[in-house]
């Protein structure tokens, strides 16, 4: 298998982008990534695009070809990938395979979601498709409610508190305040979270990631050609992916995301590293409890201690391990298909020392963890700067 590196990255501004269409968002992110790599579009040999629900959100399917068309890159192969909120990471992994196998040398990876063209109810329904339509959503479940069921059980089993969960949102807003691409660049307090309106107990509005328009792009390249485009390529040194039951009730445990553990095991094994070697991680905080589960399942702290670990500040910028320096899904925003690719963009900037105002000192190894649905898909990737 050949080595594969990221050589360029780009983002659109995340937020309620009434000014921008699905197509505009893709153009913003991908043109920035191509300029970053000082590359021509004609250098690209294939595209993998992660997007969850354009059919429901903008009435558009067949977006693989649409992306190639809009970027003026026809006739290259362009493939849409869907794995709910993990669509972006699964697209990235498939692009990685395509280069590692020797099939291509230079591939663009995009992630995009345009979510504000329909009502909040329609967005909820579209996102609900990440869970089990016949045995969860039909009965009145929402995504916040499914994560709330996990949170409630975590509180019972481990004594996790609502304030500890709130500390995830507070930290991520603080990081987002230093990220010009973020949807929310304002800091919030524990009290703000506690006072926000109830969504599904114990989760409140400020425990939940928002509805966001946005796109992200990275350019992947074989190691041999990577230095043509940047002095500091960032190599993907490990990649793991795992699946689990779609419905929460059918999983063995409700206080862990087993797919995260398995994906992390694969990725760290391939990288010949342990989680202790990682200085900066982007994890899937679609709800505050999800970041607590993520840091436990990745082994950053022990099972059950994620709430206290966060409350004690160990995941803040430049502490034991810097988690969600971009602001995460909560602060930066969560355009679902874009999120996995945005995580890779943030790690790329961090490992190149380009994360202005939120740079992790001495960042050598980075990790991303991206979850689809309530844990039916998880992807973990590990990255290292090639010096």
């Amino acid at each position, binding site marked *: 298998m050949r080595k594969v590196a990221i050589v360029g990255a780009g983002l659109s501004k995340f937020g309620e982008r009434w000014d921008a269409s699905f197509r505009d968002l893709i153009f913003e992110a991908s043109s920035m990534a191509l300029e970053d790599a000082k590359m021509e579009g004609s250098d690209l040999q294939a595209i993998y695009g992660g997007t969850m629900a354009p059919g429901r959100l903008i009435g558009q399917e067949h977006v693989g070809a649409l992306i190639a068309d809009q970027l003026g890159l026809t006739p290259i192969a362009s493939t849409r990938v869907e794995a709910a909120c993990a669509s972006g990471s699964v697209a990235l992994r498939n692009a990685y395979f395509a280069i590692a196998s020797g099939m291509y040398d230079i591939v663009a990876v995009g992630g995009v979601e345009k979510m504000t063209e329909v009502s909040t109810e329609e967005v909820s*329904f579209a996102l609900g498709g990440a869970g089990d339509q016949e045995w*969860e959503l039909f009965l*009145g479940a929402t995504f916040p409610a499914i994560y709330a*069921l996990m949170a*409630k*059980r975590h509180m019972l089993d481990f004594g996790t508190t609502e304030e500890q969960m709130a500390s995830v949102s507070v930290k991520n807003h603080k990081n987002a305040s230093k990220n010009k691409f973020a949807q929310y660049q304002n800091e919030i307090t524990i009290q703000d979270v506690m006072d926000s309106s109830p969504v*599904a107990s114990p989760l409140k509005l400020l425990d939940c990631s928002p509805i966001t328009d946005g796109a992200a792009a990275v350019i992947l390249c074989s190691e041999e050609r990577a230095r043509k485009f940047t002095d500091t390529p960032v190599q993907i040194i490990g990649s793991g992916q795992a699946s689990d039951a779609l419905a*929460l009730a*059918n999983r063995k445990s409700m206080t862990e995301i087993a797919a995260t553990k398995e994906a992390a095991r694969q990725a760290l094994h391939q990288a010949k590293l342990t989680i202790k070697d990682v200085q900066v991680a982007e994890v899937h905080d679609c709800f505050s409890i999800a970041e607590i589960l993520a840091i436990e399942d990745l082994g950053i702290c022990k099972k059950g201690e994620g709430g206290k670990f966060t409350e004690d500040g160990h995941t803040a910028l430049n502490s034991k391990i810097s988690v969600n320096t971009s602001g995460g899904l909560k602060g930066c925003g969560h355009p679902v298909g874009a999120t996995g690719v945005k995580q890779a963009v943030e790690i790329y900037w961090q490992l190149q020392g380009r994360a202005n105002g939120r740079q992790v000192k001495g960042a050598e190894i980075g990790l991303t963890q991206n979850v689809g649905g309530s844990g039916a898909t998880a992807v973990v990737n590990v990255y290292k700067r090639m010096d």
Partner: protein
Amino acid sequence: MKNAIPLIWRRIPERYALMGTVCENCKTEYFPKRMFCAKCRRKGRVVEKQMPDEGKIFSFSEVHVAPTGHESEAPYFLAIIELKNGVRLMSQIVDSEKEKIKFGSPVKMMFRKITEDDHDGTIAYGYKFKVV
């Protein structure tokens, strides 16, 4: 999503009567029904089996922001129920005093309306649970 009549019809045994499956080889029980046993695969022999209609609350949440089709019910309780045979399923908890909806509270299945499309549309029925 509008209730598809064939889907409602296909799911009647499961949604009305908690019909699941059991593998006669390893005795693992499944709800909803599975076409084969994931543990035994080809060695398994899966047959229908009705699940117990009693269990206890494994986790629960009070849903304030309801999805389309459930707005009039909000706030309502959603729970993971662990049935007496250990199988878990998701259900609403209804007809129960709020104070009694707790971890481990014993619950029993009720037959209830789940959703209706609109005034002239299809009504879908199924299970909800109440604290006993």
